[in-house]
Structure formats: structure tokens, C-alpha cells
């Protein structure tokens, strides 16, 4: 089953014609409407009107998360704000966040691309879709929501959290498709086992998982515990949100929606293209975005392109599941967290030394982050009450900054492990 067969099964030649047409129009628009691109093109002596073949893509500048941040909030928009009908932002608050806008057409395209991913995973209008992604500025909830509605499925916008209620609704509403992070799917499964619920008796058939890295082992575990076909889908808010790529029923790589996104894989250090089939950093150029087009955006996600033809009939190239990051970003409970965000918070709080460590663990399939903070000796010997107040203060500030709750523990000065004078910022104990 296809959602848009004429696009999903295009010949390479037709696809490349379409990509070229769309890229040429996109280049014109960013050069005209986005000062950042106009200036960068001028600096790099790139003539957007001279672009003639997809092979010339490499002559265009990259866009990085830093570029987006420097243009916070609306500097990268290619349309006036009154043409924008929706705004989302990546995790993080002021200064750290990246803001993305959508026109009416962007929202329509987004829903269509998510509907493709849902259809590829096996869903139809007869399905009951429980969306346990957070709604709000995060693109996951709304992205899947509009796609599922366009598909004609019955959408349950339950949002994230409240596991027992999720299970209750899953049973009562006869949910057939679950949308959430893969780790949360296992939390749901384990809670059901604890509650003595027979997962065989559920109506659940499909699971669409994304927003965090996972593995084949986790897929197997989800399949065994929930008796569903779990498929992977990929997206990032800077590009659009979910709907960039998704797995079909073959469960062997994610089909990239190449008529809307042009992808490259580059070596993160040399920025040279990697050999076919090799692992590299995914670089995406949007081809149809109106409000927030990006040229050669460095996703920092590592993946590889899979060779060969998929038996499902789609001609869209497949990428492997994301294998890791090229920067220090952590994904905790599906939320992107940068160590620098934590640093900024601690910097503003008196009494803390600039040394800290983030320990991420996975307990019962749930991510748990603990921030160990070195404090001045004076404070340490002081009364407990003060310490507790400090912990609460840090916790509160971090929760506001990161958008997720983390544990905070105070430790003695110089007690954290240091390598060559620098402390080790991140200890990720999760085995995925």
C-alpha cells in the first residue's frame, strides 16, 4: 500500500528532474528572502541562479544548528510572519532553541508525508492511533497527529505520560497503533505485565517509534512483548519533524521522502562525501518548505544509505536507523539535551563550581538523568537545609531549561573524574 504511489515509486530520472526543479526554485527563494543565505552566498561567491545540476550541490554552503541559533527566533524564515500558521521549537529555551515556522502549505505537505510513513508501516483509515508523544512545541505529537488524521485514522491525542491511563485507554478504545518513543513502548509493556494484563488480548497491531535511537534488540523485545510490528521513523524539527523518513513493512531501513528532502552523507570531519554504503553524517536540503527552507543542514545524525531495491516497490532510497551523533547532544526521554545547557544553568547559580557530570541510565526502560554538581567546600559543611534548597533550586532551573526532570546530587569539590584537567561531562550508561 502506498499513500502517494506516483511519488514513492518514481524512477530515479523523474525524481532527479523534480529535485532539480524544486532546488532551483528553493535557491531563488532563500537568496531573495533569507538574509543569512543571501550573505553566505555572496561571501562564498555562490550564484543561486547559476545552479544547474544536483552534482553542484557540494558547492553550496552548509547550514548548522549554530546558524539557526544565531538567527533566533525568526531570522531564517523565508516568508513574513503573517504567512506563518504554526510555530514549533526544538527543545531548550531562550537562546538555545531553534524556532521553525510552517505555512499552510507546509502543514499540508507535512501531514501528507507523515501519512506516507504511516501507510508504509501498514496503517489505514481503519486504525485507531494512540499518540503518546508530547504535544506542544515538540514536533512529534502534532506531526503524527495531522498525518494520522489525513490518513483518516481515528486519532487519540493522549500525549505523553500517565502510563496507567495510557494502558486503560489502549484497552478501552481498542487502540490498534501506538506512536511513541521505543523506550516508552517497553515501559508500557512492562507496566502491563505488572498489572497482569494479557498483551495478547489487546487490539494493538502496529507501533511507530522514533525521536530517540534504538536497536534491533529493542525491536525484537517490543515485538515479543506487545505482539506488534514495530517500525522506525525519522525526522527532526529543524527540517520539519516526523515524516522525513520511515520504515515500510520490510523493517529494513527507512525510506527517505526524497521528493521533498535531498540527502547527502558526509564525513563529519573532512565534510567530504562518504563512499556509497559507508556511515556518514546526514545532510538535508529541503525542497518544498515555504516558511523554513534550509540548505545542506548538518543534522549531526550518523547513518548510512542502504544499497539495493526494497521489495516493497518504493524507489525512495533507504537509510539505516540512526547510529549515533557527531556532537555531544543527548536524547533523554526523547528530548534533546546539550551538556552546554546544563553548564549555562549552573553558571548562573552561586555556590556551584564549574564542574559537573551528567549520568544517564536506563532503569526499567526509562531514561534517568542525574546531574552531579561539585559545590564549594564551605557550602558542603554547612547545614543540610541549605544544601537541600540548592538542590531544589538547580532541579527547578534545569527542568525549565531542559524541559525534562533530572535528578541533582551535590558532590565534593574535585571529586568528579577529570581527564587532562577537564572533567568528563557525560557518562551514558544506557545499553540500547
Amino acid at each position, binding site marked *: 500500500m502506498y499513500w502517494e504511489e506516483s511519488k514513492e515509486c518514481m524512477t530515479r530520472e523523474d525524481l532527479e*528532474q523534480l529535485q532539480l526543479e524544486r532546488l532551483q*526554485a528553493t535557491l531563488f527563494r532563500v537568496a531573495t528572502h533569507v538574509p543569512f543565505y543571501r550573505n553566505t552566498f555572496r561571501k562564498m561567491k555562490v550564484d543561486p541562479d547559476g545552479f*544547474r545540476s544536483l552534482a553542484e550541490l557540494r558547492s553550496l554552503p552548509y547550514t548548522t544548528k549554530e546558524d539557526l541559533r544565531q538567527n533566533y527566533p525568526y531570522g531564517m524564515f523565508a516568508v513574513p510572519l503573517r504567512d506563518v500558521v504554526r510555530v514549533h521549537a526544538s527543545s531548550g529555551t531562550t537562546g538555545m532553541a531553534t524556532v521553525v515556522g510552517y*505555512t*499552510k502549505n507546509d502543514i499540508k*505537505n507535512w501531514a501528507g508525508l507523515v501519512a506516507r510513513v504511516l501507510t508504509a508501516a501498514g496503517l489505514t483509515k481503519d486504525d485507531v492511533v494512540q499518540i503518546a508523544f508530547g504535544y506542544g512545541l515538540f514536533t512529534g505529537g502534532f506531526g503524527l497527529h495531522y498525518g494520522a488524521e489525513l490518513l483518516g485514522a481515528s486519532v487519540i491525542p493522549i500525549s505523553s505520560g500517565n502510563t496507567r491511563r495510557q494502558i486503560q485507554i489502549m484497552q478501552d478504545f481498542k487502540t490498534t497503533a501506538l506512536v511513541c518513543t521505543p523506550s516508552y513502548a517497553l515501559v508500557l509493556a512492562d507496566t502491563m505485565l505488572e498489572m497482569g494484563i494479557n498483551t495478547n488480548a489487546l487490539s494493538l497491531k502496529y507501533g511507530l517509534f522514533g525521536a530517540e535511537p534504538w536497536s534491533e534488540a529493542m525491536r525484537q523485545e517490543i515485538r515479543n512483548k506487545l505482539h506488534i510490528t514495530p517500525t522506525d521513523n525519522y525526522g527532526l524539527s529543524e527540517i520539519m519533524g516526523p515524516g522525513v523518513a520511515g520504515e515500510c513493512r520490510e523493517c529494513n531501513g527507512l525510506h527517505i521522502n526524497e521528493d521533498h528532502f535531498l540527502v547527502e552523507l558526509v564525513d563529519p570531519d573532512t565534510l567530504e562525501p562518504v563512499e556509497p554504503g559507508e556511515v556518514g553524517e546526514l545532510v538535508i536540503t529541503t525542497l518544498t518548505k515555504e516558511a523554513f527552507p534550509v540548505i545542506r543542514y548538518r543534522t549531526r545524525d550518523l547513518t548510512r544509505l542502504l544499497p539495493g531495491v526494497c521489495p516493497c516497490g518504493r524507489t525512495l532510497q533507504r537509510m539505516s536507523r540512526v547510529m549515533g551523533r557527531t556532537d555531544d547532544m543527548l536524547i533523554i526521554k526523547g528530548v534533546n539535551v546539550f551538556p552546554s545547557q546544563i553548564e549555562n544553568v549552573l553558571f548562573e547559580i552561586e555556590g556551584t563550581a564549574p564542574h559537573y557530570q551528567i549520568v544517564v541510565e536506563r532503569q526499567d526502560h526509562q531514561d534517568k538523568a542525574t546531574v552531579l554538581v561539585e559545590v564549594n567546600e564551605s557550602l558542603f559543611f554547612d547545614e543540610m537545609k541549605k544544601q537541600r534548597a540548592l538542590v531544589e533550586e538547580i532541579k527547578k532551573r534545569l527542568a525549565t531549561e531542559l524541559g525534562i526532570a533530572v535528578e541533582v546530587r551535590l558532590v565534593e569539590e574535585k571529586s568528579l573524574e577529570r581527564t587532562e584537567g577537564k572533567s568528563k561531562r557525560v557518562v551514558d550508561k544506557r545499553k540500547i
Partner: protein
Amino acid sequence: MLKIRNLEAGYGNLRVLKRISMHVDPGEIVTIIGANGAGKTTLLHSIAGLLRISAGEVLFKGRELRKTAPEKIVGLGCSLVPEGRQVFATMTVYDNLILGGYVQYKKDKQAVSRELENIYELFPVLRTRADQLAGTLSGGEQQMLAMGRALMARPSLVMMDEPSTGLAPLIVRDIFRIISQLREAGNTVLLVEQNAKAALRIADRGYVLETGKIILQGPAADLLENRDVQRAYLGREKIE
């Protein structure tokens, strides 16, 4: 059916088309909208072989049209309905139509009369006016004649240059209805129009041409929703 990559063309030193890439798939109505002087007619003329192409590729059914003579291009199945109809005013309607089929059928009388019958069915008014001089027809009828003449060659792609120009609104509606019918009958249409709203309403996809460049492209429904298109071509929302 038609694939154009990085087409450049112009008159003398004047480069009118700067870098056009576009395509038309079988069974589609594709429209090119844009203001006066954007290069719409120049584009159709370059495809039809009436104008020398200075750079780029024009592939029609996989065949390069760049150095092909206009009549050969018609023979390959690509016909043009020119702007301002350009019917042969001093000839009868019947003769105009027969001329349209000449390149394709030469003297194969059977084939010509079969095609003629098809055209008369599509445009019944032309049958009743068959013996009249083309110059005596109304504007709308002349447009139908120009379309019928192009269709006589049984083209796989019909290119129409501003079919609504100079026609009364009611007639314009008829003309657009006929273009829709052509698609339903399996024809492929490349439609150049200044009447952007009407063109986008019947088209599958569209390209927006501005000073020789394509600045926007996409499904016609999306272009109708695009605020830049609305401001510039659909007369909605005045710029404050």
C-alpha cells in the same frame, strides 16, 4: 513527456529565459503563470522550435528538440495554439482545420476526415461554421478554431499560449472548460496564462515565471494557497 533542464533563450543579445527547468507528465495540465514580459511566450516558442535555444536541454518523449525544425516537432506530437489565435482569416474554417492535420497525415484523406470528425464533436460550432471564412468568427470561436487546428495533428502535448486573452468572461469559462475536457480525453496540456486563478483551478501543477526564472513551482492547489502568488497574481490582499 516533456523535460526541460536549464533552458536559456532570447532575442539577439537579450537573454529572456535565464535558466528554466520544468517537466510535463502524460495526462497532466501544467500551467505557467507570470506577468507580462516574464518570458512565458518565449518559453513556448523555444519548445516549439520557433526560437533558437542558446543553452540547456529540451527533451520531448526522450528526444532532444534543440535542433529540430518546427514542423518536425509538430510531427513528433507537440502542437502550439499561438497567442491571439492566428487563424488564417481569409480561409474557411474547414481549410484551417485541414491545414492543421497536414504535417501529420499529408494526403491520407481517411485519417484527416476521421480527425475532422473528432474536432467537430469537440467543437460543434466549428461544424456549423465550416464554410465560413475564419476571419468572420467571433473571438471565442476563433480560439476554438485555433485549438481545433492544433488538435488536428493529434498531438500528445498541446501547448496553449494565453487562450483567454481578449475574450469575454463567459467565453473564457467555456474555453477553460474545454481545456479540462481535453485532459479528461487523455490529452496533455501545457497552458500559459495571465489569468492565473482560472489556470491554476484547472491545472494539476504550475510554475511561476518571473523575469525569465522559475521562482515557484508545485501542485496547482498549493500555488493557489501560496501567499506570494495570491499577492502578485491573484489580486487578493493588497500590499500594505
